[in-house]
């Protein structure tokens, strides 16, 4: 039945036409585009055949097809993310959760298979509300931060995003600044810590800073100075509990045998590491060693029970900072004992 409608009704039911813009920019020739679409299928076929042949020849699964499929899925996910255009929201810090979660697969491979991380005490991380994670910092590049983030996201019953505070130096670096901001990190400024905690986020700080990452291999697992305990003051003011975190294994990923200070100064970096592989092997020297990792989340220290004025009490702040430091150091010793060997 054709609906009778007065012009008024028709006007009421009408919707404004959507404006469709023609695709602009360069377009590849049709054959190339066709090949682009089919290439992944051909590649997959090839890999399947290869894996079957290898299995026939050796009698073992040399290529794990599940892994391959996971990888392909990751690539397709990345492509979809690239095609989002402007249709996504970031929070005021520039954090894009969707984009961050797409990388979790990559970090899970590192977490589970490469460093075989064993995480204990994850129940100490609250499922809701603010908390300040305080960890030791080691390894020339801050891989420990990514592993703590992965641990909380993968192991916690309520997956949460940890927001780490990084040195402003990294936010001035090309690619780094873009990746760090996008995945929820922000600059290590007391203001930022406070704002994140006020939004009930899980914030990760490394009070050692570059003093921790840039230490010599012979000083491994010895905590550096914890600054002036600024993180304790911020936690008290924001009424957030402090959760000490001990990470074992990060020290061995890049055994730094020397620091070329003049070159570091020239390049504007805090240190220029020399390891058995870097810079002798070029980019290959940047591959971290597969040490065995353990991460332990300790019981929270409830500094939020103190009144906010206590943040100015230097005695209390230093006492709490020392307590946190001792907990982390003790946790490191305990976990070192539990570890059978550096690479086991």
């Amino acid at each position, binding site marked *: 039945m054709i609906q009778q409608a007065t012009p008024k009704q028709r006007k009421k039911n009408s919707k404004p036409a959507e*404006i469709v*813009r023609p695709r*602009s*920019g360069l377009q590849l020739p049709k054959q190339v585009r066709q090949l682009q679409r089919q290439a992944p299928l051909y590649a997959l076929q090839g890999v399947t055949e290869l894996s079957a042949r290898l299995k026939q020849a050796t009698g073992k699964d040399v290529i794990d097809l599940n892994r391959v499929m996971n990888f392909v899925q990751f690539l397709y996910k990345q492509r979809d993310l690239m095609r989002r*255009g*402007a249709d*996504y*929201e*970031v929070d*005021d*810090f*520039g954090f894009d959760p969707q984009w961050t979660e797409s990388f979790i697969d990559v970090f899970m491979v590192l977490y589970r298979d490469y460093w075989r991380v064993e995480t204990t005490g994850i129940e100490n991380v609250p499922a809701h509300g603010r908390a300040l994670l305080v960890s030791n910092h080691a390894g020339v590049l801050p891989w420990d931060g990514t592993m703590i983030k992965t641990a909380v996201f993968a192991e916690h019953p309520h997956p949460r995003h940890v927001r780490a505070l990084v040195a*402003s*130096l990294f*936010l*001035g*670096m*090309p*690619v*780094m*600044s*873009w990746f760090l*901001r*996008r995945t929820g990190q*922000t*600059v290590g*400024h007391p*203001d*930022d810590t406070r*704002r994140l905690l006020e939004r009930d986020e899980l914030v990760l700080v490394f009070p050692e800073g570059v003093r921790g990452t840039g230490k010599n291999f012979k000083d491994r697992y010895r905590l550096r100075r914890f600054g002036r305990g600024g993180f304790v003051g911020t936690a008290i003011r924001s009424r957030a509990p402090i959760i000490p975190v001990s990470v074992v294994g990060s020290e061995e990923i890049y055994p730094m045998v020397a620091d070329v200070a003049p070159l570091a100064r020239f390049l504007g970096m805090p240190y220029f590491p020399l390891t058995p592989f870097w810079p002798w092997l070029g980019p290959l020297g940047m591959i971290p060693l597969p040490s065995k990792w353990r991460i332990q989340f300790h019981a929270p220290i409830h500094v939020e029970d103190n009144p906010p004025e206590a943040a100015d009490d230097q005695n209390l702040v230093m006492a709490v900072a020392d307590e946190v430091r001792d907990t982390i150091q003790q946790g490191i010793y305990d976990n070192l004992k539990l570890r059978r060997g550096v690479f086991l």
Partner: protein
Amino acid sequence: MTSPPSPRRVLLTGVSNPLGAEVALRLAPHVPYLFGCDVHDPISALEQMDFVHADVRHAAIGKLVRQLQIDTVVHLAVMVDSPSDQRSIHETDVIGTMNVLVGCSGPSSRVRRLIVKSSQAVYGAGPTDPSFFSEEIGSVERPGSSGVTRDLYEMEQLIGEFALREESCQVSVLRLGFRVSEDTTLARYLSLPIVPTFAGFDPRLQLLHEDDAAEVIVRAVLGDHPGVFNVAAHGVVLLSQAIAIMGGSAAPVLPPYGRWAARMALRALARLEVQAYLADVIAYGSVMDCSRLEAAFGWKPAHSSRAVMDSLARGREIEVIEAPSPPQEYELQVYLQRRRREARNGHRIAPALKAHK
């Protein structure tokens, strides 16, 4: 300090730029006497406003304030995003403000309210900055600052000293966020078909809608809000998002180190004169904390940063004007198109038309 009586005789400096014209239009129904001054002719005629040609760079502006017995000065003749050279920007911002302040000071002065337009540019931008600028940060000199950032800092210092000295005058400084109406440098940059960006950087941008900018100035004039306020839209857009909204594509070709090289490249590639502070913003991003504004004014900008970007993109959808026969008709068509676009943008309808209705 008791709050000053409601404004009666208001002087608007810099009334010939689009923001000044909009403010004049909105203020006119609320104040009995409205005066405007600028170097250029006003862009829209307003019956209720007396217009004077005056340059803030000359001391005559002080005489004007006294002779007209002004009680409220709205100082909008502050250049931030301007193609003028460094020297004339400095003269307008610092010397010009100084002249205005001279006019407002002294025991015989009748000025009870001073509203000054400043800009987010006063914060500059850099990797070591916190993610949000609160008002106190702008009151400390930024090391190594130059250009507009430094000029605005000096200007705000002068205003701060004035506010301390003249207790009878209530001073509000509004640090307006970056605006992207069609003629600002940032808008022209974002509207490029291929946008050169800094390689490996995707900063957060915070914007301010023209409407909200005019609204906040009017609210500052009619209310009692002494102090310094950040004014910007809530939320952020990433630079890549902004470019995608405008339908362009980003080309990460600018070198991340050495600003002068990047600025030269922009001048050569896009014929855009990008100020040093804006180049820093495009690299590192700049976001302000506007909680003080919300607390004091009980109002916040109506458009989010995302909405500001969307309205710029909508305004850019060009309609084709069909075979214009006589020149008058063509002009009419162009006028109507502009009006439609402004209406879609959420701007108020142009004053001339309203008067005829």
